[in-house]
């Protein structure tokens, strides 16, 4: 492609003009990135922290529905995180399921660690629910092991921090109901509750049909961290699996793909082995590409490129490496877009000039 474009620049003057403009634009972009670097770093660190907050709420919502959890007597089971994510579809955060001969129930939940614009949160939840409804056959067959013709009651939950549940209920009512709001405590004792809507909404499907579940969901004891990685986790949080999986070798911490897979196997217990293997390989590849680790033929394993085995320090290094790499990629992308835009401008000009003899100066 580059060669083709170079051939288009038919004169020395034209090539010079193009090079000058491109170089200037690239310099400006680099200067802008350098100027904003601190802000970019802060934004990325905040995004990691927001993702951790989201993960806390997600854990709070599903932990009570594990086999020994406080809601286990309700017979609802935590089946998986990020259902449909492996198909590349917009997805909810969790799937709960209650087996029943006549009408089994699936609860799809969306979690929000912080809510800046509740209207967009509710809208997004509805869109994701629609995707799930469109793929109900997959949910039945692949996740719940139900025949496709089997009836299934689908309920939708939006879980938000305790302080924002009233706002969420208000917006759900305004937009027609059909979403059940849960509130999760971000601080203090880890617990979840159903947020009760006003009485007049009784026909708006904002409570679970199962009365026992509504009763049980009152300060149900939970746990904010029992799963560290979900299928849709932030790439940096996935990379921390490297530090979990590593062990001391002859020259620093080392790890293998198998160890990463084992370290992830509890977190992603509901995913196929092939998915976990692929995720492990991706994590290792990413760890190498950002320069955090390298293959060590001597050890027959990957080696974390750092002095010392202090994992707290290694985590800081990993974060720095990931952020550097992310900013570099953003910069490359921005430069590539700008470069393409300049090329496009020249293509248009050249085409125009070809129509007008002696046009380009």
């Amino acid at each position, binding site marked *: 492609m580059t060669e083709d474009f170079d051939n288009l620049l038919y004169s020395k003057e034209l090539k010079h003009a193009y090079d000058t403009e491109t170089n200037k634009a690239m310099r400006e972009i680099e200067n802008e990135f350098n100027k904003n670097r601190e802000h970019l770093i802060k934004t990325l660190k905040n995004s990691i922290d927001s993702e951790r907050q989201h993960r806390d709420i997600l*854990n709070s919502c599903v932990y009570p529905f594990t086999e*020994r959890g406080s809601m286990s007597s309700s017979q609802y089971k935590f089946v998986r995180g990020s259902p449909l994510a492996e198909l590349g579809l917009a997805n909810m955060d969790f799937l709960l399921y209650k087996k029943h001969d006549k009408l089994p129930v699936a609860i799809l939940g969306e979690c929000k660690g912080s809510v800046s614009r509740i209207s967009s949160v509710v809208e997004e939840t509805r869109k994701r629910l629609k995707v799930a409804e469109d793929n109900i056959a997959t949910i039945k067959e692949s996740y719940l092991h139900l025949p496709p013709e089997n009836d299934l009651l689908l309920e939708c939950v939006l879980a938000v921090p305790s302080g924002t549940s009233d706002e969420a209920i208000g917006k759900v009512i305004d937009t027609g109901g059909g979403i059940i709001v849960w509130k999760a405590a971000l601080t203090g004792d*880890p617990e979840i509750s159903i947020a009760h809507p006003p009485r007049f909404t009784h026909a708006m499907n904002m409570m679970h049909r199962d009365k026992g579940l509504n009763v049980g969901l009152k300060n149900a004891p939970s746990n904010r*961290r029992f799963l*560290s990685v979900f299928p849709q986790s932030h790439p940096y949080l996935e990379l921390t699996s490297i530090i979990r999986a590593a062990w*001391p070798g002859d020259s620093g911490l080392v790890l293998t793909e198998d160890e990463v897979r084992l*370290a992830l196997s509890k977190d992603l*217990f509901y995913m196929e082995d092939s998915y976990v293997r692929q995720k492990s390989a991706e994590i290792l590849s990413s760890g190498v590409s950002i320069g955090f680790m390298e293959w060590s033929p001597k050890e027959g394993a990957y080696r974390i490129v750092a002095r010392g085995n202090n*994992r707290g320090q290694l985590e800081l290094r990993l974060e720095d490496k990931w952020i550097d790499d992310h900013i570099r990629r953003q910069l490359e992308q921005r430069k590539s877009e700008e470069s393409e835009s300049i090329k496009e401008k020249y293509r248009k000009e050249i085409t125009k000039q070809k129509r007008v003899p002696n046009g380009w100066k």
Partner: protein
Amino acid sequence: MRVPDRVYSLKEFHRYLVDQSDEVFADDKRKRWLKIYCLLVSDQGWQDRLFAANEITRLGEVLKIEPSTTPIGSDDSDSDLENSNPEPERYYIAEYCPGLLLMYTTANNDEYQKDLGRRIDRCRGVTQMWMKPDLFETLWKGILERSGGYAYFFTASRSSFDAVRCKIRPECKRRLNYTGRDAIQTMQEMQESYGVLPEIVYLQADQDLKLHIRNDGLFAAREISANALNLFFTHLDEIKEDILRMWKTSNQFNFELVREAAGLQLASVNAGRIKLNAKELDSVAFSRMKDNLEGFSIIDAHLETGSFSLTATVIDERKNSVFDISATESQILIVPKFRTTQESFIRFYKEIVETIDESAELSLANPLA
């Protein structure tokens, strides 16, 4: 230490030690202490994990251990032959009760560390028997009261800023050794003023009997006598149930996957809980805890201020075990994740007791479930 190879019950072994103490020490040019290390083990597989077959000789209920020069699990390849004892140290191990082993030796601490200590530190499912401050006190004070003797030396330390009350410069970490006939009174005064907890106590139990007790499960006697062994076992029996209960509790923490009839794979978590009784965890205490946790790393932490909340992954650097924690002001929930082994939880609990709250309790998060 030398004991003739023959079949012993534990009782017979003790009788031999008492009746033939000169023989036991015969190999030792310098007069040594008889040491009994208390070890907690998770299962019956400890022999295979700790020792090579050629290191063990079975003598009835007692195992004789002659550690090879390159012990299992040791990364020491530079053993200093000049300094090593020409006569290799021997260790004798017996099961006192399920989960609790006693290891007898006259080896000094350096030799023990070289031969077995570091091996035990790294071996999964085996650990020296740490005693909580209250249980340690029960042990040594019980021995002291029964024998009518006195303490003449102690080592005490303050490993954190918060765990123990302190009048003078509570922000300082400190460690002190004290020698004197008034060691008990001094210990009490030091505890009140400087907030230190005893770790090692030397007792003059009677005119001829000196004892040495450490909070990591070492009992040592300068003379091998029936009195020394009686004192130790009587008071070990007083605390062993509490220790084994804690050990058993830590063994129940797990994260299992169960497949139900319809084919769904489900998570079953038996989380542990450290309940704080006298102190609250907050961001300042967490920051100090993070800096002071010996042998642990904390990664992937998320902290909410205000009403305190912390989630994180903890890694035991000695055993490479990985578990998640979720903490509030009053409790820390523990979820085993990867390569976990129960002594990691006990050691983490020990760190919390020593750095945050000496009255913290370890239990299952949901014992009724």
